[in-house]
């Protein structure tokens, strides 16, 4: 399973571009954009059989305006694709100065259980 492709596909109808790891353009970033990163761990059963792999997705919505409407679309799109929302939070207000806070930012954590069923030798 290509988790990155799954995420990009899930977010294709949100109306904001989604980038793995970071926005990497040369000019100013889009007014609203999404970045995401993932980690995963195997979930071994007692008989040493790999049944599932748990993916965690750290997804960030950056926007020059209130990102909440986009965040709601992200929430809905990810849920439809089978991702479980672990948390959602506003980021930055308490740690960044006004001059740094040009963009608003909402951060999500999602998890996804991939059914793999592989015998570990």
């Amino acid at each position, binding site marked *: 399973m290509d988790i990155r492709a799954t995420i990009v596909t899930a977010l294709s109808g949100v109306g904001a571009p989604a980038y793995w*790891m*970071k*926005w990497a353009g040369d000019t*100013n*970033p889009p007014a609203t954009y999404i*970045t995401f*990163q993932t*980690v995963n*761990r195997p979930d071994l059963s007692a008989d040493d059989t790999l049944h599932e792999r748990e993916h*965690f997705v*750290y997804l*960030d919505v*950056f*926007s*020059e305006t209130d990102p909440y409407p986009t965040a709601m679309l992200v929430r809905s799109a990810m849920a439809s694709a089978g991702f479980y929302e*672990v948390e959602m939070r506003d*980021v*930055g207000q308490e*740690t*960044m100065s006004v001059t*740094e*806070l*040009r*963009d*608003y*930012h909402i*951060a999500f*954590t999602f*998890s996804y259980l991939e059914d793999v069923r592989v015998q570990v030798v």
Partner: protein
Amino acid sequence: MAITLSGTEVFLSDLEKMIPSDTNVDAALAEGAEVIAREMRQLAPVKSGKLKSAIKVGKARNGRNGRQVTVGIHRRDFSGDDYYPAYVEYGHGGPRPAPPHPYIRPAFDLKKDEAWSIVKQAVIDQMNSKGL
């Protein structure tokens, strides 16, 4: 920029009733938290090394649900005027955006189960050593 492990999570039903009052829960919590701290250090990006070296397991204290420890970067332990660990974890926007480098949340997500197991085993080992 730290997460909290609560001792209550350890005291699962029957086990809770079996734990003697003189059990050193704080040491067990710290042992479990260190697993998460190690993962944080592995994931933390390194430039000066300041961020990585600031990751610590805090002292156990009373919380709403019993004894608890925090693991991560504690504001009071971070020397220097610029407190940037949250910027690293979450990144920031702006004309020159910095991408997120999650190292706190993944460490917890990947190692929380192992941490709980270690905490529980540490408590069981203490009980065994007392012949219980």
